[in-house]
């Protein structure tokens, strides 16, 4: 058999952080898809706004203020909560990178609790819109915005739950440390997207 030059890759590692990992690319591709979806949803919000003056539409002739702006309470609470949740998730992210299991466990538990509260707050945000989804186009599009983001909150919570169970019950292995950094990116995205949607739903009708 004649010899053929070779490249020996047996010394290469099995895992790498961030752009080394194909899963990083897959995850970020999924986030591009979801961002496109939200971009079009937000465009829909502003498109429909052209049709309805005043925006939001009046609640009713004799009941309360003419403009039914959404109540700021729970939406703003969620902004504060989700911004605060960046602390534990950064802890998780850094702990995963530095092989600090206790930090990751603590961070994940706090994240789970915060996510659960955020979901409860979201449940109160829907009535705060003051219109049902079937009342008019304003109600429909705002419920869609809140609902699609809620879907992401739920998925995020489920993913956190799975990883928390794994980290507690099994070992703090490399593959799952990488998964934690992927979870962190998803978490940052969900928070960032909420800031944008919060501005669209709660701020834009008040300032624009």
């Amino acid at each position, binding site marked *: 058999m004649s*010899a053929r030059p070779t490249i020996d890759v*047996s010394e290469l590692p099995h*895992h790498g952080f961030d752009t080394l990992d194909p899963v990083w690319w897959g995850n970020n591709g999924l986030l591009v898809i979801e961002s496109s979806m939200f971009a079009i949803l937000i465009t829909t919000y502003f498109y429909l706004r052209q049709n309805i003056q005043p925006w939001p539409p009046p609640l009713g002739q004799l009941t309360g203020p003419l403009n039914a702006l959404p109540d700021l309470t729970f939406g703003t609470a969620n902004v504060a909560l989700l911004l605060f949740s960046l602390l534990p998730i950064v802890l998780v992210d850094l702990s995963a990178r530095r092989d600090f299991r206790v930090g990751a466990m603590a961070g994940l538990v706090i994240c789970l609790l915060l996510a659960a509260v955020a979901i409860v707050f979201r449940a109160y945000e829907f009535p705060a819109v003051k219109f049902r989804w079937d009342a008019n186009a304003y109600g429909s599009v705002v419920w869609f915005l809140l609902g699609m983001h809620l879907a992401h909150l739920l998925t995020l919570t489920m993913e956190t739950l799975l990883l928390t169970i794994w980290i507690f019950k099994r070992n703090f292995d490399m*593959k799952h440390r990488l998964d934690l950094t992927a979870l962190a990116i998803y978490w940052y995205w969900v928070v960032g997207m909420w800031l944008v949607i919060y501005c669209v739903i709660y701020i834009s009708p008040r300032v624009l």
Partner: protein
Amino acid sequence: MRDDDKRAQTQDHVAEAAAADYRRTMEQTWARPHGLYGFLIETDHKIIALRYIVTAFIFFLLGGIEAALMRVQLARPENHFLNPDLYNQVFTVHGTTMMFLFAVPIMTALGIYLVPLMVGARDVAFPRLNAYGYFVYLIGGLLLYIAFFLNTGPDAGWFSYVPLSGPGYSPGKRVDIWAQMITFTEISGLIGAIVIIGTAFKMRAPGMSIHRIPLFVWAQVVTSFMILFAMPAVMLASGFLASDRLVDTHIFNPAEGGDALLYQHMFWFFGHPEVYIIFIPALGFVSSIIVTFSRRKIFGYPVMVLSLVSTAFIGFGLWVHHMFATPLPQLGQSFFTAASMMIAIPSGVQIFCWIATLWGARINLRVPLLFVLGFFAIFVLGGLTGVMLASVPLDLQIHDTFFVVAHLHYVLIGGSVFPLFGAFYYWFPKWTGRLLAEGLGRLNFWLMFVGFNLVFFPMHQLGLQGMPRRVYTYLPDTGWGTLNLVASIGALILALGVLVFLINVFRSFRVGEIAGDNPWGADTLEWSTSSPPPDYNFLYLPTVQGNYALWTQTSETPIVIGLSAKKRETLVTSVVDAVPELRFELPGPSIWPFCVALGTAEAFIVGIFTPWAFVVGAVLVFAALFGWFWSDPDYENLKVIGAADKASSVERPTRLQPEKA
């Protein structure tokens, strides 16, 4: 025998035994599962791609039958072959089938089969996700056709405009079935895009830097990025439509502040990139075929890549040309006229580069190249009528007439289906190990070419004479009868061409000429392995030393060793320069993609009838995802950064070391 010779002989025996052991171990590690359960857990990209191809081709035939039904009905005025309601369903299902169930999936399929092989990988980057994508596509197609056969197929056109498709004017569940089928096919398309991007970016052979990537792979990557940005728009549009119908949202209801035109914007923001999603992979086929059959490097490789990218970008700026007949401001419309004309430039540049490649080359005019020449003729005609339609004044006259039907079929069939058939003839030997018959192939081509032009060329004139689209019949004194009859006869000839193709395929499966590894003398890496490829694609992963891998390969071109044969290991390399980075373990067969697909199916099918289906579906999907990600314990007992795998003589061939001079 001298001691040196004995030692060398022993070493040879050891090396051969080690190599044979290595091959056997690889075959065991990558062995495919069997039986019905094996079908459900399969993750091999080649098998999944072939499933996509077969399924999509069956949908192509069904769509063709629907077309034939329409041509029979329209062959003469005041025909009674199809009643109006059935005709509405037939043209809706024809368009929906061709666009969503045939065209995009089959382009994805060829990418899923060939991209890993062309970049020198063992499988796609995400095999289980790939499997899930196929199941979701199949379920969506079945949903549409079961409904159609139960006389509850959608009937509001393949794009299903509101208000016709809204709750006010389309009672029942026909449109809901359409809307949810969209969800399935778009999820499948998006998944395919993620899979292709991950594979093409991170799993290329060492040395396949970014300027050495085959144009086929470039086309697939560009298409995948278009999919990421375009498909969410139609998912939202169909989602809004479904919710308007099911739970009384008012996104498209003008009476409550909604907007019917918004649907058109949203749909066509997807719809125009969609046709480029269908077209751009075909440009990849054409480049592959022209390079092989002219035995020349492509003229202007960087320009070809930039043309693909700029076509994709400009393609996102055209959508309003489907809405010229709406009361949108003229200044805005004229922007889209400009963009719609501008997009002809990169396509034109590509055609000139291909002509330059062929010019003066020693051309091997086999059937694949014949289909590419057919593409040139037909697509250019379609592109010209496209530039005509880009002009608002002309479009206002011929919008919604058969002129548009002629244009769209010239660009889609010419631009995508002809290259696709060329691709079938070109890659069939790789998939099956046998060549398709050359004579039957030529007959196939000419029947399709003549038949196609007979069907669709008269439609230009019919459109200019005012024949509208989507009418189930027409009056005799319009004078449209003759050209319609010609078109219907052409349809028969086109159908015969497809029949000849099927005969060729079935015959060649059994008695076709054995292909060998590289029957065409082609340059890309898939031709360096057997036909069909082994389960692991390449026994040792290749490296690449130039563009046109096999034409720049020498006996000094290295191969990759050191990947474990006991695990499904492939190589991960860097995005730009393809420098080896990781040994990546791919998951083996798994039932979880099928389970997630079932959960998805419950959500979106039962969701046609009640919104609570989504709650149940979410629970099912999350449960199945738990199973998916709760991975095999052995998976993590891999060495971390820096440590080396202890390779036994079974795993690493001893003799294939570089000879020390």
